[in-house]
C-alpha cells in the first residue's frame, strides 16, 4: 500500500512535469512610433463637391463626379540613408472610397522606427503579383472586381461621373483604371486580346518628409487633386474617349501618365 501511494505521488508529479511557464517574448528594445494617413479629395484644389456639374476640365468638358474609389498599395517610407520601410506588417493594400468615411483614414498597424524620413511613396493600384481575382470577396473592395476576360484582378481606380458633350448632352463616364488589353485588330473583341498591360504606377509624394518620435503617431494627409487626372502631360477629352475606357488601353495609358502629379501631401501632424 505504501508503495502504491508512493507511486501515485510520483506519477502525479510526472504527469504535471511538463507544466511550465513561458517568458514574454516582446521586443522591448526597439524605439518605434506609428503613422496614420488621411485621404482628402479636391478638384482644382478645392474640396470635391459630388454630384455638381460645376467643374470644367482642361479639355473644356463640363463634368461632375459622383464616386471616387481606388487602391493604393506598398506604401514605403524612405530615409535619407537609402533605407526604407515598406508598410506591410498587417495591410499592404488600402482601399479609399469617398462615400465610406472609414476608408479615408488609415491607422497603420506597423511599428515604424523613429527618426527622420525623406519621403513617402506608394503604388497607385495593385501590382501584378497581388492583383489576383478572388483576393477580395467582401464589399466594398469586391465591387472593384475587374473581369477575368479583361485581365482579372481589381480596378485600380473608379471615378464615376458625367460630362456634357459638345452637343450639351449629359453623358456618364466611367473613368476606370485597371489591367489593360492589347487587341489584334481595331475591333475591340475579347477574342482578339493577345496581351495584357499592367497599368499600376509608382507615386512619389513631393514634400512628404517627416520626423517620427517614439510612441508618437504622425498623421499624414494625402491629397488627390482629381482634375489632375485630365491634364498634364496629356489633355484628356471625354468627348474623344467616350464614357467607358476599360477596354481602351491608349486612354488608360494616358490616365496612368497623368497620374504622376495627382497626389500631394497636405498637413503632416
Amino acid at each position, binding site marked *: 500500500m505504501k508503495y502504491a501511494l508512493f507511486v501515485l505521488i510520483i506519477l502525479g508529479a510526472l*504527469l504535471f512535469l*511538463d*507544466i511550465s511557464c*513561458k517568458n514574454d517574448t516582446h521586443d522591448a528594445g526597439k524605439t518605434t512610433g506609428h503613422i496614420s494617413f488621411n485621404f482628402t479629395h479636391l478638384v482644382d484644389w478645392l474640396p470635391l463637391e459630388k454630384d455638381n456639374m460645376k467643374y470644367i476640365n482642361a479639355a473644356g468638358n463640363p463634368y461632375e463626379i459622383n464616386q471616387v474609389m481606388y487602391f493604393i498599395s506598398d506604401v514605403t517610407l524612405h530615409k535619407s540613408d537609402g533605407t526604407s520601410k515598406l508598410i506591410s506588417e498587417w*495591410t499592404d493594400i488600402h482601399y479609399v472610397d469617398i462615400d465610406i468615411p472609414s476608408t479615408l483614414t488609415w491607422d*497603420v498597424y506597423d511599428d515604424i522606427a523613429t527618426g527622420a524620413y525623406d519621403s513617402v511613396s506608394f503604388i497607385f493600384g495593385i501590382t501584378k503579383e497581388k492583383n489576383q*481575382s478572388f*483576393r477580395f470577396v*467582401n464589399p466594398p473592395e469586391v465591387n472593384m472586381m475587374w473581369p477575368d476576360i479583361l485581365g482579372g484582378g481589381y480596378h485600380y481606380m473608379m471615378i464615376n461621373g458625367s460630362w456634357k458633350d459638345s452637343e450639351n448632352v449629359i453623358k456618364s463616364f466611367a473613368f476606370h483604371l485597371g489591367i489593360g488589353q492589347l487587341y489584334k485588330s481595331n475591333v475591340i473583341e475579347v477574342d482578339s486580346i493577345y496581351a495584357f498591360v499592367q497599368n499600376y504606377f509608382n507615386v512619389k509624394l513631393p514634400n512628404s518628409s517627416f520626423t517620427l518620435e517614439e510612441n508618437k503617431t504622425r498623421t499624414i494627409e494625402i491629397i488627390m487633386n482629381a482634375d489632375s487626372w485630365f491634364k498634364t502631360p496629356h489633355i484628356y477629352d471625354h468627348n474623344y474617349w467616350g464614357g467607358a475606357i476599360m477596354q481602351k488601353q491608349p486612354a488608360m495609358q494616358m490616365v496612368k501618365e497623368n497620374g504622376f502629379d495627382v497626389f500631394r501631401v497636405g498637413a503632416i501632424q
Partner: protein
Amino acid sequence: MKKKIYLFISCFLLLAVGTRAQHLTDTIVLGGVVITDTLIKKTPFLSTQVSKEIMQSVSTRDVGDYLRSIPNVAGIRKGGGAIDPVVRGFKFSQLNVVMDGGMKIENGCPNRMDPVSAHVEVEELSQINVVKGPFLLNYGPSLGGVIDLQTKDPHPYAKFEIHGNAMFGYETNWDGAKEYFSLYGGNSKVYFRASGGYRKYGNYSSGKADGETTTYNTSFTKYNYGAKAGWAITDKQTILAAYSESHGRDVMFPALTMDEKSDDTRMMSLDYSAKDISEVIKTLDVKIYRTNVNHLMDNSNRETWQAKQMVADVDAINTGGKAILGMKIKNQNLSVGMDFENIYKDGIRTMTMLMMGTTSTKRFNLWNKAVIQNGGVFAGYNTSFKTFKLDAAIRVDFNNADSEDTLKLIKNGVEYFNETASQFVNLSANLGITHKISEKLSVSLAIARGTRSPNMLERYIKLLSVGYDNYDYLGNPQLKPETNNEVDLTVKYSDLKLGSMYVNGFYSYVKDYISAKMLPSSVIMPATLGAPGVKQYVNVDNATFTGFEFGYTSPQAYKLGVNVIAAITYGMIPTVTKYIIKAGQVTGDTVIKNDALPEIPPFETTLSVNYQLLHGKLVPKVSYRLVSAQKHVSDAFYEPETPGFSIMNFSLAYKVSKNIDINAGVNNIFDVSYYEHLNRKIIGSTEKLYEPGRVFFVNLNLSI
C-alpha cells in the same frame, strides 16, 4: 533490488489502469424521469449514463440537443439541429465522440454541420455515456472527455421470435414530425435488427420579446436506415455485422455562411466478441469499421447567391479497428488493447462571382487528400483493497499526418503554411483512488493527463468560417498536440431515505492549448463572403479550466421524485494578444492577461420534480432551468456577454399498456425569448440565434 522490481511492477500496474473496468459500468445517472441507479460509485471520475427510456420521454430531435441536459454539457447551436456538444468547455476534437464503443466518424463539414452526434438519431440509441475528463482511454485519445453513443444491438432468443417497434412524434412551433420503425428478432443462433426513421422539421420561432417573435430559417429533413445481424458461433463467441446510412437534405444553418444541401453517411462495422476464454482471460473484443461521409453545402438559400455562389463538396472517410483483452486475477481487473484509425479527407470549394455582367469561377481545395493515421496501445487496471479502490490507465498514441496541399504561405521568413507532414508520439495516463469512508460516503481523487493530436481542421483547413466568430480559418500543419493535465475531486453520498448526491470539483491545465490568432491581410485574405479576416490555428502556452458540478436525486422508493443539478466551468487563458480593430481595420495589438476563454457556458442549475401516479404508469414532471448571465467573456475574441434566463418545461409520460407509451408535454411553457451563450450569431448580423419558443410535443411509442 526486490523493492525496485516491486516498484517497477507497481508503477506499470498503476499506470495500466482498468479501462475495461471503467467501461461504463460505473456511472452517475443523469437527473431525469427515470432514476435507475445509485450515485455512489467507485470510479474516481464522473460519468453520466442516459437510458433510452429517458431519451424517449422528451422532445428530442437531435442527440446534441439532448446532451445539453447533462450537467456541464452544453452545445453549440448553428441551426435547427446538429448541436455540437461541449463538455466542461472542451469541444470538437477535444472530445472523443464515438459510436458503439469505438466506431468513429470524421465529420464532412468543416463548419461542423455534422458532428458525430448528428449522424445518429435518438431513436437508434440504447444509451449515451458521457465521461468527463481524460479518464477513458480505450476509445482513442481523450483530452476533455468521451461521449459514447451506443446504438441498439440485436440479441439471441431461446426460440425464434420477431418484434416490432414504431414511434411517431410531433412538435408544434416548427411543425416537426418524425417517424421511426424497427423490426428485430431471431433465434439462439442468428438474430437481427432492422430500422429506419424519417424526420422533417420546418422553421422555428423564438419566444416572444415585446410581443414579437423571430422566425429562423432552421428547417431540415433527415432520414436513416440500417440493419444489424448477429451470429452466436458458440455460447461464448459472437459476431455482429452492422450497416447503416443517414442522410440529411436541405438542412438550414442561419448562423453559418452556407447550408447543408445534402449529407450522405454510410457506416459499417464488424464485431467479434468472446468471453470466458480462460481462467484469467475473460473477454476479447475485436472491432473493425468504416464510415464514409459525403457532405455538400452551398449558399443557394441566401441572398448572396445572386452575386456570389459558394459550393463546398467534402468526402471524409474513417477506417479503423480495435482489439481489447479483458483479464481478471482475483479482484484485479486488467485490460490491454490496441486501436487504429485512418482518416482521409478531401474537399473542394467552388466560388462563382457574378459581377459587371461577367462570371468568374475559382475552385480551390478545402482539404487535398489529407490523411491522419493514429495508432494506439492502451492498458487498464483496477483493484480494491480494504476501503480503497484504485483505477489507472495508460495509453500511447502514434500519430502521423500528411496532405497533398500545394499551398505555400511564407512571408518575411515566417512559414504560415508549408511543410504538411507531422508525426507525434503522445502519452496519456490517469490514476485515481476512491476511499469509501462509510457505506454512504466516499471520496475520490483522480489525476490525469490526456493528449490529443491536432485534427483535420486544425491542421489543413483552408479559408472557411469554421470558428465561433466569422473569420476565415487557416489550418496549421505544424501544430503541436495539446495536453490536458487534470485533477478531479469528487465526494459522493447516498442514503436510502435521503437520496443520493455528489459534488465534484476539477481543474484542468491545458498545455499547448490550440487557439487561433489573426493573420495580417498582407499575408492572406479571407475567401468567404462576410469574413472580416483570417485566423490561423496556433498553440498558445496554456489555458486553464476550473469548475464544479453538483447533483442530487431523491430516493427512488418515493412517489415524489426530485432532482437537482448545477454546474459551472471557468475557462481562462493567462496571456493572449488582442488585436485592436477600428472601423474594420486592424490598427494595433495589445497583450491581455488572464482573459476568459471564448465559448464557455455560464453557471446553470435545473430542478426537476416528478410524481408517480397509477402505480407509476402516469408520471407528470416539471422542470425549471435557471441559467446565469455569462459575463466572463473573452476580450481578445470580442466575445459578447449573454444575459441570463430561466425556462420551465412540463411533460407527462403515460404507459397505456405494455405495448403503448405516450409522452407529451410543453417546453418553454412561458415562451421565453432567450439564447444560450454558445449559440452562434446569425450571419450578417450581431444577433445571436435564439432558442425555440414554446413547443408542444407528443411522442407515441408502439411495440409488439
